[in-house]
């Protein structure tokens, strides 16, 4: 009588038995979801939860993110996986907006220019703020706190510009403040933006990835990924070959056809992987790119479902 088609058929091939959560396989924290004292209080076995499910007693455990307390019970408020650190129980939502933390690298888009600050869309619950005082001026000039700087703000960033930045601090209401005070941060050009769910981007040692196919990637933790033409080593930020004036340039460099092709191919690969909810890392992207080249898959073919399935099957088995 009752039928469910809650997800496209394609993903049913992933069996649930394969699922292991990040908290389980040993890191230094005392996390054992199947611990001895665990079974009685928790709905043991299932580590997945949904809004309104009672997880445990609030007298024995503390509530973390994604939970609330009602009538002596810790109750989940989002659909996701239960995580426990000692006595702290939290639920990590499987799909949600980006939750910023200080030090995160993000890719964002300027939405508004305001007095002494820019508003930046960063896929978070509020627009981020980039203060005029937290950017590098061209040529490393010290900012003289002058009105002329404020009048020139649009020469640095305008509405619609893309930038890579780091989360510096939070305001009282939870909005994040960004900074670009490093030569690796700043305005983005020569490429293309892809948006994926933020949970698919893990914290890596470096979020600046260079693929051998002449493509550079910036994996923003907020789920925005910048795919661009490769910049030569000696013109990298911090090297002498860098032109100071070009930091805030709006002009793309000349990009030849093979590079354009490579950028689009990487972009499409990211879209395919993200649509199948595969976490992204440089290894996977490289593997996927090699697969695309080996099998002679055209950029446009990557939009076809059957070819996508082939890709996902290959990437999944190599691990």
């Amino acid at each position, binding site marked *: 009588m009752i039928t469910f088609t809650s997800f496209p058929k394609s993903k049913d091939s992933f069996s649930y038995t394969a699922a292991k959560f990040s908290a389980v396989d040993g890191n230094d924290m005392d996390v054992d979801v199947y611990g001895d004292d665990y079974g009685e209080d928790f709905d043991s076995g299932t580590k997945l939860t949904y809004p309104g499910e009672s997880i445990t007693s609030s007298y024995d455990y503390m509530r973390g993110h994604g939970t609330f307390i009602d009538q002596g019970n810790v109750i989940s408020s989002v659909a996701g996986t239960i995580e426990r650190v000692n006595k702290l129980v939290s639920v990590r939502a499987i*799909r949600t907006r980006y939750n910023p933390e200080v030090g995160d690298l993000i890719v964002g888009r300027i939405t508004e220019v305001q007095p002494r600050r820019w508003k930046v869309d960063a896929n978070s619950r509020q627009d981020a703020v980039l203060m005029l005082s937290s950017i590098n001026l061209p040529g490393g000039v010290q900012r003289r706190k002058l009105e002329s700087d404020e009048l020139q703000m649009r020469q640095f960033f305008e509405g619609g510009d893309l930038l890579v930045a780091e989360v510096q601090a939070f305001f009282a209401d939870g909005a994040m403040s960004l900074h670009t005070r490093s030569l690796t941060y700043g305005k983005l050009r020569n490429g293309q933006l892809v948006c994926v769910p933020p949970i698919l981007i893990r914290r890596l040692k470096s979020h600046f990835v260079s693929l051998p196919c002449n493509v550079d990637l910036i994996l923003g933790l907020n789920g925005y990924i910048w795919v661009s033409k490769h910049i030569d080593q000696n013109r990298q930020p911090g090297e002498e070959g860098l032109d100071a004036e070009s930091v805030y340039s709006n002009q793309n460099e000349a990009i030849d056809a093979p590079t354009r092709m490579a950028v689009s191919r990487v972009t499409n690969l990211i879209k395919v992987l993200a649509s199948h909810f595969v976490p992204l890392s440089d290894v996977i992207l490289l593997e996927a790119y090699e697969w695309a080249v080996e099998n002679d898959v055209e950029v446009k073919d990557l939009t076809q479902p059957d070819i996508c399935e082939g890709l996902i099957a290959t990437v999944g088995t190599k691990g």
Partner: protein
Amino acid sequence: MASRVEILNDGGFRSDGRKQYELRDIVIDLSQQGSADGSVVLSHGLTQVSASVFGPREAKMRSQTLHDRANINIEVTFAPFSMGERRKRSRNDKRVLDFASTIKATFEPAIQTKLYPRSQIDIYINVLQQDGGVLQACINATTLALAAAGIPLLDFVCAVTGGVQSASPLLDLTTLEENDVPHLTVAVMPRTGNITLLTMETRLHVDRFEEIFQLVTSAGHVLHKEMKAAIKDRTRTLVAAMSVAPKAVGEKDPLYSERMDDS
């Protein structure tokens, strides 16, 4: 109309072959739609509704921001082809606006808006097919879309329509029955049993109210089982999909990865 069609025949069957307390087929499709944070297409029999949730995100109009909680913005559109008679409803139709504010009032006690000050949660509901119980379908779709978008909820909100045909209660009415029978819609939060909505647009005898109210509330619990199964199923699929991928070089744990090369 009533003379030609029997709402409940002598055998105890309704016009579409259901028994009195039988609900219609429910189909839940939680697949991704465009750039929405959470989206669902929900069918109760021939009534079909799609809901998309965006947010919490920066409010488009500064005047709408609330300094202590998120603002909920609900927009409902009825597709012109959703009824037997083709009819275009304007965006500012009084009935549509009223309908949207009813849904908003239903969800205000269920969403933890306090966690997202100065943000906005946008909910866009599209009614694709109407065959009775449009309000219940909209509410159930919104709950599912909110849960899919990872927005903190105190509980699911499950809505069911019920009516009384000459002393015999009916559940989950079709258009045919809604036109003929006094009916009410109840939205219940199953964990606590709180009622967040009760609407009646027709007159119902006060003696009948108690019975139908109890019945509709318990039907809400039945729907809750189906809705949470769908959400759990989706969570399970996504978690499984995430674990299939190979890990990065030297990666021990996805959270604390140690990579050798970042040339």
